[in-house]
């Protein structure tokens, strides 16, 4: 009798624990989708980024996104980098430097300026690279999504993404190394403005913990819906930009 009771209890616990995890994951994925919709206004769009690191020189770039999985980053300034471009197809990246005259394969970890990597610029949605492991309600105002990389090709092993409980807007994120233990960067989503019909962050402030907490800011502007030709997203075509 006792054994039957224990067996029933264990079975029920496993069942409810499984159901609870499933429910959390579903909610988490929905929440992440909402966050992505705030960051990326559509599947196909274009925007500008200005990346600056305090007193150091800054970069401006135009980014074209196609089907959320392809990105083309074209450097506009400074003159030294003009003509340079970075292509993202899924988790694969190439850089084109005008003088080199050829597209070169690079890793997502390759840095653009300060604490900003190429992946930070061109990857506009988290759900493509990360899955939700848990959602914690930190307070009545904030929730934390624990994201884990879907594969080793993702730029970070783990992300702790804090969102507003009220409207799911991303507030800040902590990025961890491949093993998920080492804190690399913290990003703050700021400057919320009405862009293409809803409130979106126009500033991302990144604190690089590996470089003495150096701060790099990314300003987003000139958002527009644009369907870029598919041929733009081929390494052999980068020379034409």
């Amino acid at each position, binding site marked *: 009798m006792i054994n039957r009771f224990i067996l029933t209890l264990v079975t029920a616990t496993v069942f409810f624990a499984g159901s609870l995890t499933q429910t959390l994951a579903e909610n988490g994925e929905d929440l992440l989708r909402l966050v992505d919709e705030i960051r990326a206004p559509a599947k196909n769009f274009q925007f500008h980024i200005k990346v600056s690191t305090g007193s*150091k*020189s800054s970069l401006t770039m135009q980014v074209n996104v196609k089907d959320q999985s392809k990105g083309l980053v074209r450097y506009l300034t*400074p*003159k*030294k980098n*003009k003509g340079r471009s970075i292509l993202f*197809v*899924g*988790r*694969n*990246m190439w850089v084109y*430097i*005008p*003088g*080199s*005259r*050829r597209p*070169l*394969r*690079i*890793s*997502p*970890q*390759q*840095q653009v*300026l*300060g604490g900003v990597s190429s*992946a930070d610029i061109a990857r506009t949605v988290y759900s493509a690279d990360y899955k939700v492991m848990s959602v914690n309600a930190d307070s009545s105002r904030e929730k934390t999504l624990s994201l884990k990389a879907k594969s*080793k*090709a*993702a*730029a*970070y092993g783990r992300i702790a993404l804090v969102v507003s409980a009220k409207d799911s807007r991303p507030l800040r994120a902590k990025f961890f*190394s*491949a093993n998920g233990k*080492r804190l*690399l960067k913290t990003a703050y989503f700021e400057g919320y403005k009405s862009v293409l019909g809803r409130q979106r962050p126009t500033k991302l402030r990144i604190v690089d913990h*590996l*470089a*003495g907490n*150096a701060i790099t800011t990314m300003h987003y502007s000139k958002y527009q819906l644009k369907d870029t*030709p*598919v*041929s*733009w*997203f*081929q*390494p*052999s*075509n980068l020379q*034409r930009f």
Partner: protein
Amino acid sequence: MRSFNVFLISYGVFSFLATVTKQVRAEEFRFDINTEIGVYARSYDSEKTDLFPNGKSAGLLTNQAGADVSVTGTLGKGPLRLSGKSRFSYLPGSTSPVAEVTADELYAEVRFSDHLFGYFGRRSLAFGQSYGFIPVDIYNQPLKEKRLYPSDKSRNDMEGVDLIGFDFLTKNGDTFKMFYAPEFEWLNEGFTEDNWYLSYSTFFETSGIDVTTSAFWGERPGVGLSGSVALGDKVVLYADGTMRRNREKKTLQHSKFIDGFTFASGNDNRVFTYLTLGSGYTFDNGLSVNLEYTYDGSGYSQDEWDDIDESINLASSMSGSLASRARGQINTALRHHSLRRNYAFLRMAKDDLLDLNLESEFTLLHGLDDQSGRVGLRLEKEITEGASIGVFASHRYGKENSEFRLRPDISSLALYTLIRF
């Protein structure tokens, strides 16, 4: 065959212009021009070698100062784009100042659609994934590179290839490239035969592998293969290789000096493999490291090199004009970017060294056959928008008469500034 090629080119250019004329009407002009000025001073630490017992007589200067000005322009209207790059180089010297104006590029390209582009004129071309030796970069002329500037500028300051061709980009992400580069009196002066080039590039998204296969006909016809893949978020693996007929290097027929040395292009019609395997790793702090191994089947074997070494020693035992002639013959035969068969290459680069906005690059090219090599260190800092200053130091090491110690310029230090507007 030549008449057919000329007809083909004429027809291509005519069709090209006819199409362009129709399409450019009612479109706005797009114009972009960029100028880059480089000023440098370079100092050498020379050391006598058996091949160059007197550095100055070989035309090498202990100190140099010069300037390079390059102007790049693009004019576009509708589907037509005209691009050009001209370069002026000035190297003052006490006896023979050098001033050269070069048209590196001047070509027209028309976009027939988002997937088809045609072009003709002089165009700079580069292929491959590697950083040290790039076997598939068959139109590169590394001996002409002015290596004191950053590698992308050094590679860019080159005369292009006179050609006509087209690129076809499929909707699936593949690219076909084909061009014809004729050998005429006033076109492609370095060529001895007409060149054809055909390549196909594709990307396998599921595996993340990109591949380019090529075939080319000319002085040294052959086939090429390039590929790369990223592993995780930090590692990149890549390879470039060719198999080409004929050998560029001349071998010493015998080490005896009978009315001069006899060098000849042996092994004609044999196929030579040239292969670079490389890997790249990016650290969390942004440091990028590339390590490459290169095998050049057309390089000198140990036996061939022993013969050359013997001939250098023989030339050293001579005197007067006979010695000069012997050394000149050997030097001419050895004027190649690389001479042996096995190399390792290391590159370490970081854009923001010590958080000082300092671009840094360290390179090491090590010959595995004779343990000689070359190290280089470059530091460059942007001092204001469009202007940067840099320093480049290089040093060659190895035992006497090894590949990298044949010539007297053992070490060099260069200071340069680059201004862009």
